[in-house]
């Protein structure tokens, strides 16, 4: 197992190139090109601001920012899972032609999502500042939260990318699952509005807990619950180990199935 990771490390240059190729070709052929990386979150913010300050009224202060403080993180999670599920199947051309550690593929999807998220912060943090939510000392927890999210997302991406090879329907089922999970992630509403009997859906949900931590930092300016964070961190780490083992077992059969 350690060997798999060493192999990935040896191919880090390829990983780096795949991520940058991904980012560079994502908006290929469009007029604004790479600028879309920033335009996307910006326009999203504009839409939500207009929608929730004029059309819909929520009982939350500055709801667009409440939403936006976690929405980027959620998008990182959901788009990575969804595009990650088909990454092996779509890379058949490469897998059949040349040897490289296949782990690179899901890792590159997660890394691409991470870089995109960090670009998103360039929009998010000024937007928060405009409304008076200035960067604060709690931002020091941000790298930790992000690291846990990366580990968790990577673990899930390992699983879905390898399982989709053998069960293609998974890719389509995931769209529904991720969509449902969105409403259980606490991105849309404060957990305090959730009825008591449904609270467990959020309290034992690592995604919801992660989102709450982001909101603590960005919106409430308070220290995230370190106990919760370490629990999800531990959970994510164990899940990653298991997921990679499963991936490593399945990867030898990829070539015959794609």
């Amino acid at each position, binding site marked *: 197992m350690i060997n798999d990771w060493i192999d990935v490390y*040896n*191919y880090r*240059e*390829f990983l*780096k*190139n795949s991520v940058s*190729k991904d980012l560079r*070709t994502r908006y*290929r052929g469009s007029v604004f090109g790479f600028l879309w990386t920033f335009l996307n979150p910006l326009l999203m913010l504009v839409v939500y601001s207009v929608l929730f300050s004029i059309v819909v009224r929520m009982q939350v202060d500055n709801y667009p920012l409440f939403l936006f403080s976690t929405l980027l993180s959620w998008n990182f999670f959901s788009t990575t899972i969804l595009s990650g599920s088909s990454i092996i199947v779509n890379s058949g*051309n*490469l*897998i*059949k*032609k*040349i*040897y*490289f550690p296949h782990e690179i593929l899901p890792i590159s999807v997660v890394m691409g999502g991470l870089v995109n998220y960090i670009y998103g912060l360039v929009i998010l943090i000024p937007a928060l500042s405009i409304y008076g939510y200035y960067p604060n000392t709690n931002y020091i927890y941000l790298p930790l939260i992000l690291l846990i999210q990366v580990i968790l997302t990577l673990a899930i991406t390992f699983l879905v990318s390898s399982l989709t090879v053998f069960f293609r329907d998974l890719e389509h089922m995931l769209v529904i699952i991720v969509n449902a999970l969105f409403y259980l992630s606490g991105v849309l509403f404060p957990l305090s509005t959730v009825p008591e009997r449904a609270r467990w859906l959020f309290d034992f949900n690592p995604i919801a807990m992660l989102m709450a931590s982001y909101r603590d930092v960005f919106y409430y300016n308070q220290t995230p619950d370190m106990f919760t964070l370490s629990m999800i961190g531990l959970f994510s780490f164990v899940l990653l180990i298991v997921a990679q083992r499963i991936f490593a077992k399945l990867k*030898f059969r990829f*070539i*015959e199935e794609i």
Partner: protein
Amino acid sequence: MSNIAIRVSDVSKKFKIFEDKPATLKDRIIYRSKGVFQEKWVLRDISFDVPQGKMIGLVGRNGSGKSTLLKILTRILQPDKGEVEIKGRVSSLLELGAGFHMDFTGRENIYMNASIFGLSRKEIDGKIDEIIRFAELGPFIENPVRTYSSGMYMRLAFSIAVHVDPDILLIDEILAVGDNAFQKKCISRIESFKNQGKTIVFVSHDNGVMERLCDELYWIHESKLIAHGEPRRIIRDYMDFLNDSEEKRLNEEAKLNVKSDEVAEVKEVFQDGDRWGNKLAEIVRVRMLDVTGAEKHFFEKGKPLTIAIHYSASNYVIDKPVFGIGIYRMDGYCCYGTNTHIDHERIALEDKGIVEFYVEHLNLVAGEYYLDVACHHENGTPYDYITRALTFNVKSYEEEIGIAYLPHQWMHKGGQ
């Protein structure tokens, strides 16, 4: 395995051949079936060692498993049984240009592609000029790869693959790449790898190159390793085998042709050529015989050949008949033609008989030829003229070129 670069032990590989790939959800759940498939062993119990610095070649017909073996050596495929141990960095020239992105420039693709071989950016920086020079791309290196001709594309891909500085190089049939000049460059690059003491596994259908470059050849036939050893000997055995199976195939075909025609109407026996003449004398059969008198389609260069022309003549008394033969290359070039008149042979026809044309040394270079036979009057009136009566092959272990072998020897007188 101190000086063994590649050790292949008892490697077997099977493929699933699906007859009906999509299994329904019901089948999957109830019968745990994944569709109907057959298992086909493409490699069985292959074992060999390649010492460091040696170059070995794999020969065998298409589909014998050579490419699968190479893919296992590169780790693209995993063997179902057995193991492969490899010492050092492997570069493969199996599928060139893996991971090329059409919209990126040649230079960007060099970084992309070389990193798939496991090179760091620093290493690539050090080699990039050499890669570009070898690919002969010049200023085009800054253009997107999609604007390249297929030759430029392959040159770039090949150039990267040979510059990753591997310890072990796997090469599959790349010599079809590029024009003659570039092929020569490829070969000399392979030779220089060899001289640097790299280990090379080589697959090619160009037996001449195989024989010249490889230290040892392995012959894979129907997924098994059936022989290995000194290149010259393996190639000879392999060529004999190929010729024999081709001979068999041609005989089968000939039999089919004859069978389809029970009255033995001779015309059908002859192949697709034209035939004309007034048939006062008729050629009923043409046979090509080797030294043992057996009918053959393959003849060895320099060995005896007999062309037997069976004729039958009608009641007329035909005077001054002339029998002739012509040997043509497949492109229609006449290699040799003569007849009994030119050779001052007089033949008195009977109602049937055989005219034999005997060559003691068939001095044609290797290749495929066809034979015209004719019987006509001395004044030129054709009785029976058959073009392409037979096709035949000449095989040779030498690689001379041209049309005919000129008996010769080389001499050297120094100091003059």
